[in-house]
Structures are given as C-alpha cells and as structure tokens.
C-alpha cells in the first residue's frame, strides 16, 4: 500500500497556518463529551493531556510509573532547540528545518519538520510562562549553547537537567488540570492492548500494577505517548521500564510500524564495566562543546593518558570533520568511536572507550567555568566510575539511546488506524534516520502542546462522542487476550529468568543490528531471535502471581514483545539496502567510509503491517518528496 502523509498543499512555510485556518473545530460545549485516552506522561503525554484538558476534553491519563513526574523524559540533560535567533548568529526557522532534515539524512517528511521548526519558539515561551528556570545571563536574557549538527547556538537549557525542568513544567500543567477535574490520572497502570472497533481505535486494556486487575477504558480517541523502543538492546540509556509494548501491541492490532531500523547510538556514554550492568548512563552531548575526543594514534598503546604526548594523540573527529569537529552529529561520532576501538586504539580496561578530555578547556577557561557549565555531569561521572573528570579525561563509549522509528503517523499525527494518535518518540515522524541533539524535547513538547490540540479536532468532528461503549464485545475479547498471555507467562515455570532472555536478545541486537549492520549479520539475527523467543516461551520462569504487584511479570511481558519486535527491526534493516543516518550498512559506504544513501530506490518511509504470528510482515511505503530541499550528500567536513 502507498501511504499518504496528508501534508497540506501550498508553500512549505504556509502549510501549518493554512491547516489551522481550514480545520474544523469541535464546539466548546461539546468538548467535554469526548473522552480522550492519553498513554504516557513524558513530555509529549503530559503536555498533550494538560492541553487537551485545558481545551475542555475529558482526559484519562495513564502511566506505568508511580507518578507522572517520573517519565523518562526527565533524564534528558542537554537542552531544547528553538529557532529564536536571540544570538543574531544567523538562525531562522528555515535553518532549523534544514539542519533537522539534513541531520536526519533526508529521510523525514518536510512538512512535519518545518512545522516543528515553526513552533519551536512558542515552546520556549510556553515553558518560560509555566516556570521552567532556563539558564539566564547577567542581563536576565535567556542563554543558549551549541549542540551537534548545528553551526548556530540555539539550544536552551537548565543546567544539565533540561528534560527534568521541562517535564516538571508539563507535569505542573497536568496537575493543574487534575485539580480542575478535566484530567483523571491512572499511575502504576500499564497499557497492554489497544482496542480497535470497526477499524478505529476506541480504547485500551490495562493492568493495574498494584492489584493485577485487568480492565479496559473506552475513548473517542487514543493518544500513545509511550516513548521509544531502544531497550530492545537490553543495555541502553533508557529507564528500566521503557518498552515497545504499547506501540507493538497497537501494531499487532493493525497500526503500521515505521522505520524501526533507525536507531540512535549516542556517542557520549559511560563504558560498560561487566555482565552485571543493568543500564548505561549518558553524559550530555553538551560536553562536546568543551571536551576534545581522542584516542592514541598507535594500536595497543597502553600508556596512561598523561604519558601520551600530543604528537601521539589522534583527535579523530577534529581530523575527519574539521568544520564541525567534536560537534559532528551523533551517528557519525558514534561510528567513529567504534572504528577507533575496533582498530585496537580504544582506552580503558575493556578497550571499548575513547577519551573526552577537558584539559584544554580548563586551561583556557578555568576549572570553575567548566564546573559551572557541567558540574552535575562531572559529579555523576565520578559517582559511577570513581574517577575525577577535572584531573583526568573521561572515558566514553557509544550506547543505544533513542529510537527515530516508531508508529507511522500522517501530518495529523494520526496512525493508519483512525482515532489512534501517536506523539513524541513513539512516532516516527520528524527525525528521519538520525535525530540531532536537543530535538527530542522540542518534538515531544511541540506534539503535545501545539500540534495535537489542533489536529485531534479534525478527527473528532467526524466521530460521535461515546460511539463505542465498554460493553462492546471487543473490550471483553481484548481483556481475555491479555489475561491469557499473563497466565501463560506465569505457567511456564522454566529454568531461566526473564532478564536472561533479555540479555541474550540484547547481545544479538547490539552485535548484529547495532552501529554497523550487514546483510550477513542481519540474516543471522533474523535466525537467532526466533530461537531465543521459542526458548523463552518454553523455559522462562516468572515467579509470583498475577493478582498482586509483580515486577517480574511486568518485565516478562515487555521482553516477550521485544523478542518479536527485535526481529521486525532486523527485517527492516535488511530490506533497506542503503546507509542513512543511524542505519549503517557496511556494504553501502563511500570511499571515505561515510554512509551512502540510495535516493533512487529508498527515499521512502518503510511502514510494516502485522500479518499474524510467524508470518512475514507486509511492507507499505510512503514516498518522501522534497519540494523545498534538494537531496544532497550529508557532509560535515
């Protein structure tokens, strides 16, 4: 099937304003008759639920955490982009749009990205109004910093905790609506199924994580704001509870999953120490503003850092990409680190690490300035590694971090299933094959505060409120499916814990479908993953019962989905015979080892449709047309 992204016609810069002028509105007095389900309370979910509540809709908000304030957006450190041009350094909506498209290696939809750049400034204004304490200069003006993939300084920040401050801003707005009675919160509640009636999303089935009770909620529209799937790699920078479950179960109910192979491996994370590792910790990319990345020039050079003279050091990013240097985009920086380590030039006990060195900046600016800029990151680094980043270079290595792929949505952020909206990282829409730093926060809040309040009404005007009630047989069926799966997981009583299977899957994903992929490695993964899955369903041991708080059961359910989804990801990577952004196929590279796109054959969004267990998924395509930009080789040299 050829998918229609439903971009409005007309010149790029006028599409969104024209859309807003033309759209149909729901009468204010009718809004409260509409019940809207919002799953997830991160930046996208909290801002969407708050804003929809504010408009007068009746909102039910769900999250698996004990409080909406704990969603993983909270961990974003560096900042949020906006085309304010406060610094007079040549920024504009067009430039942010261009940087984002280019950063995404020309694999995103022009109209969506332009809209995002257009509303980026409003996001900052909105956040300031809701009490986000952004960094200010001595005259009281907003400060900015530089981030990867941009030559202007457009990233607004709150120390190294920007995600936290933005999320708490959205959480405050959400809390206000809870008090006003427009939003009802359901914490410690996990969505386990999407209920589809006559082809439209009309509700969800959830498990109460305290009592184990399985129940359903009916809604006139469902918004999934459930984050990314990068925990499919087992070790990642995501929180332990982040999963693909909500999105994947929607996929099994007919929603298309787009570009799952676009995964982001973040270059600046603390290296792995051993098998016990449960997660990887990211050090904000903002560190690359002042830190210089290097490895020894010679293979196997085991001298301590302070005995390696300048002449024997390879500042490889500065060497290969002189105009962007240490601020080259994430995919390029990660791959360069991997190459250096694969050549035997890595540092640290495992050889999988590169130096991030602040010595020059400390000499130039003083330790106090560096401390003021990144103090909390240096503290965090020391807590984890027991090393002092002011006295010796930090050691970093890439780690799985973000998912550009996600459920397919059109310009309205609506999936191919009418009534199902997907926001933030959970959708595929704005970052193409690689996301630039500080753009995830922008997209999450943009979708929730400014896009969905407009686009959801276009759908709602076409549907009568309360059309489907909880007594519809589909709800009962959905609850039975969820109960059956829960019972099955508890009944296997095998020999291995859920985590062991997750780790096995993670190893295959990281080695075969990680930073560099080949036809051979992908085919191997497609063979191995079903084996792990099969063993899981025969030999997993889930202790405890289904009628109480049971963290092992929660985990097992999520892993069961990862075990299917990992294969889909590998299939998508295998079908895409080109390299672009975070998807690097070793067969497709330029003479200098850069990603080589194939615009003639692969300039489309690959959206997969579920065809049943053990059946190959069906590929649908949305051709990407570039009306404004010319497809160009992405160069950061």
């Amino acid at each position, binding site marked *: 099937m050829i998918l229609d992204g439903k971009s409005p016609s007309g010149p790029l810069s006028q599409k969104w304003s024209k859309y807003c002028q033309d759209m149909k509105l729901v009468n204010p007095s009718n809004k409260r008759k509409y019940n809207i389900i919002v799953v997830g309370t991160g930046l996208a979910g909290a*801002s969407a639920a*708050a*804003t929809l509540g504010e408009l007068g809709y009746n909102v039910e908000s769900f999250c698996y*955490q*004990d*409080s909406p304030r*704990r*969603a*993983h957006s*909270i961990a974003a450190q560096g900042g949020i982009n906006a085309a304010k041009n*406060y610094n007079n350094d040549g920024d504009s909506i067009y430039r942010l749009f261009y940087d984002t498209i280019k950063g995404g290696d020309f694999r995103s939809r022009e109209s969506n990205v332009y809209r995002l750049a257009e509303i980026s400034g409003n996001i*900052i*204004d*909105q956040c*300031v*109004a*809701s*009490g986000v*304490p952004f960094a*200010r*200069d*001595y005259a*009281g003006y*907003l400060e900015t910093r530089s981030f990867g993939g941009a030559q202007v300084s457009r990233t*607004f920040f*709150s*120390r190294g905790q920007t*995600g*936290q*401050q933005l999320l708490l801003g959205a959480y*405050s707005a959400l*809390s*206000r609506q*809870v*008090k006003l009675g427009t939003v009802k*919160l359901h914490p410690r509640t996990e969505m386990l199924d999407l209920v589809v009636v006559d082809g439209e999303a009309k509700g969800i089935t959830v498990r109460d994580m*305290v009592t184990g009770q399985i129940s359903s909620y009916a809604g006139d529209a469902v918004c999934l704001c459930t984050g990314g799937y990068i925990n499919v790699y087992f070790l990642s*920078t995501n*929180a332990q509870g982040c999963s693909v479950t909500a999105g994947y179960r929607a996929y099994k109910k007919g929603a298309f999953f787009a570009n799952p192979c676009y995964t982001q491996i973040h270059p600046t994370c603390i290296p792995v*120490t051993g098998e*016990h590792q*449960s*997660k990887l*910790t*990211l050090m904000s990319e903002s560190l690359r503003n002042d830190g210089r990345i290097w490895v020894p020039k010679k293979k196997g050079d085991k001298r301590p850092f302070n005995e390696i003279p300048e002449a024997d050091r390879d500042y490889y990013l500065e060497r290969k990409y002189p105009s962007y240097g240490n601020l080259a985009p994430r995919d390029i920086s990660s791959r360069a680190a991997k190459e250096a380590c694969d050549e035997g030039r890595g540092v640290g006990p495992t050889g999988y690490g590169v130096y991030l060195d602040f010595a020059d900046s400390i000499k130039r600016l003083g330790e106090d300035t560096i401390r003021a800029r990144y103090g909390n990151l240096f*503290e*965090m680094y020391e*807590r*984890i590694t*027991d090393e002092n980043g002011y006295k010796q270079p930090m050691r970093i290595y890439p780690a799985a971090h973000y998912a550009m792929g996600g459920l397919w949505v059109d310009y309205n952020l609506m999936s191919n299933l009418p009534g199902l909206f997907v926001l933030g990282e959970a959708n595929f829409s704005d970052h193409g094959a690689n996301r630039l730093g500080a753009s995830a926060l922008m997209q999450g809040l943009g979708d929730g505060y*400014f896009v969905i*309040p407009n686009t959801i009404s276009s759908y709602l005007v076409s549907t009568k409120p309360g059309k489907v009630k909880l007594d519809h047989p589909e709800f009962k069926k959905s609850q039975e499916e969820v109960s059956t799966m829960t019972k099955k997981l508890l009944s296997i009583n095998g020999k291995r*814990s859920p*985590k062991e299977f997750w780790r096995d899957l993670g190893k295959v994903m990281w080695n075969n479908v990680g930073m560099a992929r080949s036809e051979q490695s992908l085919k191997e993964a497609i063979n191995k993953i079903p084996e792990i899955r099969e063993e899981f369903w025969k030999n997993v*041991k889930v*202790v*405890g019962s289904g009628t109480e*708080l049971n*963290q*092992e059961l929660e985990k097992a359910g999520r892993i069961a989905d990862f075990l299917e989804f990992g294969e889909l990801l590998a299939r998508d990577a295998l079908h895409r015979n080109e390299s672009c952004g975070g998807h690097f196929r070793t067969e497709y590279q330029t003479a200098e080892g850069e990603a080589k796109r194939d615009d003639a054959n692969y300039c489309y969004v690959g959206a997969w449709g579920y065809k049943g267990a053990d059946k190959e998924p069906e590929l649908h395509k949305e051709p990407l047309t570039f009306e404004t930009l010319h497809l160009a080789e992405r160069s950061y040299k």
Partner: protein
Amino acid sequence: MNLKLFVWRQKGPNSQGKLEQLEAKNISPDMSFLEMLDEVNEDLIKQGKETIAFDHDCREGICGTCSQIINGIPHGGQERTTTCQLHMRKFKDGDSIYIEPWRAKAFPLVKDLIVDRGALDRIIQAGGYMSNHTGGSADGNAVLIPKPDAEVAMDAAECIGCGACVAACPNGSAMLFTAAKVTQLAMLPQGKIEAAKRVCLMTEQMLKEGFGNCGNHYECQAACPKGIKVSFIAKLNREFMKASV
C-alpha cells in the same frame, strides 16, 4: 565481595512485615546498589522464590523513583546520591546491610520496599503551578529574570520528588519538598502573581495528607540527593507569613 542483607519483606499494606536475611554473593565493587539487588533477585528466582519488590526506573539519579533506607539512612548516606547511584565500592566484604522502605504516615506501604507517594503529587495538584494556558505566552525574553533569581529558582527546582526528606524527618514532614516548589515559583516574576494563594493551598494539602511539621532537625537536607537546602523552608515560612498578614 559477599554481603549479608536484612531486607524488609511485606506482602501488602495490611500484612505483617519483617526483616528477611538474604545473602548477596560475588558482588563487584563496580555494581550499583540496585544491580546488587538485581543479582539477589536473580538468585531468588533460581530458588523459585518471590523477588524483592523495589521501586526504580531511570537508574541515573533523576526520576526520583528509587526509595530505600539503607542502614537507617534514606538513599544510604553518600552525599548528593540516590540509591540507584550508590555503588558497592562504598561497602566492604562481609558487611551487613539493612534495607527498608520509606517510613512515614503519609506514605502507605504497597509491597516490600515500595510505598505510595501519591501524597506528594496531591501537594503539587493543590497549587504547584502557574495558571497559564498553552499558547499566547509572551516571548521568553519579554520578562527578564535576574540571573541570581533564576539560579535560586533552579536550585529549588532540582528536587526530584523522591521523598527522602520525608523519610529522614522524625516528624515525617514534607516541608522541604513543598518549600522547594514554593520557592522555585515565588522566585520567578511569572510566579509571584499567584504566590500567596499557592503557598496557602500547598501547605494546607500538606497537613491534610498527614505530613508532620518541621522541627528544625535538618535531617531532610542531609538526606536530600539533590542538595535542596533547608533555607528554602525559611522561604516557605516567609511566603506563608506574607500570605497571611
């Protein structure tokens, strides 16, 4: 290293709880405290026993989910460190470690080490926000904010809402938590407009939830993983006085 653990086990809010003795074997100093518990749980699974339930999520010290009293101190006593960021190199081979949930009247126990901190959400719902609408906000630079004020607001805003302050306080008071939000918003020009109403609503909710009053023990500041200072409680009291006179 090998450790002897005494872990609080309790099936549910109405069941009887007790400290259970468990072994943690072959623990690497590079493990985080929660990774150590992961290992213990994997052992329990092998024995077919129920795992220790504990709250955790981001494991990088920012989501505020993890909440354990370790050897009598919320988050274990390393300065500015959450349970998830505490590493095993701070312990010695053969150590006995006592692990308990947050204990406070306003935090009913859910299971084992998990408590219900919904009361903190309800304090925010009472008034911890600006009553602005989405859209129509003035330009971010329209109202300038002196850097010192923005810095104090940010110091207060660093609170992760973990509730260690409540667990550390002999009175089970949530004054530090409430003070942090009141201060953050009262320091900003946009927040001054509703400051009086906000501080009254939030403190009223705080009392309604069963949190005690501040007795100037300063245990909250010592336990806070984000270094939130008790001087904010003075600010809370001042804001409250201002609102009441």
